């Protein structure tokens, strides 16, 4: 994708994928990338139980507890919170092999279609290498087509009891 041809991602596409994957619960801390397009609509969605948290690592544990009860959830956070939660992700998601599904907004990502590894921001550049080092399966959500594969990857996460990370590169549109 080249500069100035960046597609938008609709929050409704992600909600549709979550519903399709039978996700019952979203655990979330507000993130500027996803708040208007996803978190606010989710807060009004009768099919989704929203659990607001005070800190992102709480969400890792809440999703873990739900997974033991056969309930599907996703954690909606910002990449700074992902970095802050690495120890919980390392233990609970990776070592314990639990299906922790993370939707991570890349706050500050340049809106010109470049890969996160080429961002001017250190905090964004290091996300994919960290995921790789932790053997976390990672996908970029860059357009509605990539949003649509969310549901099948969430299915896989639960089928194989493994974590997965979706990096959302651009502000989501509200519809």
């Amino acid at each position, binding site marked *: 994708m080249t500069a100035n041809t960046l597609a938008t991602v609709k929050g409704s596409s992600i909600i549709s994928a979550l519903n399709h994957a039978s996700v019952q619960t979203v655990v979330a801390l507000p993130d500027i990338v996803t708040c208007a397009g996803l978190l606010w609509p989710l807060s009004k969605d009768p099919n989704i139980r929203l659990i607001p948290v005070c800190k992102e690592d709480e969400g890792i544990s809440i999703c873990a507890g739900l997974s033991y*009860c056969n309930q599907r959830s996703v954690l909606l956070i910002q990449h700074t919170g992902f970095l802050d939660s690495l120890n919980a992700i390392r233990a609970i998601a990776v070592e314990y092999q639990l299906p922790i599904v993370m939707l991570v907004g890349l706050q500050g990502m340049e809106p010109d279609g470049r890969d996160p590894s080429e961002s001017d921001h250190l905090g964004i550049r290091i996300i994919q290498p960290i995921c790789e080092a932790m053997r976390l399966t990672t996908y970029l959500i860059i357009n509605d087509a990539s949003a649509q594969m969310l549901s099948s990857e969430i299915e896989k996460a639960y089928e194989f009891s493994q974590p997965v990370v979706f990096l959302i590169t651009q502000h989501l549109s509200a519809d």
Partner: protein
Amino acid sequence: MLARDEALKVLAAHYTDGITVGVYQSIFDWMQIRPHPLNYLCTGAMGQAASHGLGIAIGAPNEKVVVLDGDGSLLMNLGCLFTIGHAAPENLVHFVIHNRTYEVNGDFPILGSKVLLFEEIARIAGYRHTFVFSEIVEFKLMIKHILELAGPVFVNLHVEPGESYRQDYVAIHSSESRAIFRSALHARLFGHQPENEPSKTSPDYSANEFHQ
């Protein structure tokens, strides 16, 4: 005077068959005082017990969930009190075993031990009932009532060390412990064994990992 193991024995006498999520010395004691497949041992990272407990309480709303938290652990995740207060699970009872030290990490004192009122923070955060005990007689008198209340309930136990119990770090990080809990929980909730176990072909990072 409230020795930790004596307090846990009182709890065990009234809570014989339910889900328990615990950390550090409290769960080491509990595993030996009330061994049970519904003991959730693997919280993974310090401070996370109550958050795991909240997930289970929401996922299994017809089951009582008891959390045995530590004071140092809860200090590390104080926001969870507000998360739990907001989510308001009626089936969650959150104990903090308040011994004023990081006992398993060298007995170094926690900060604020002389001024901390966990029960006040919990009350403000939205827990429906809060209690504080420092005498075994009073705790014995109230425990049955506490376990019957609609939660979330918070109980601050000011304890002294009791007898020495083995610190089984292997158990609190082992894949076997998680499989035992999962099987017992699924049998309780669904009447059958789990369909999706963690992949046997994936690397198991859990063996002998003691990091926090």
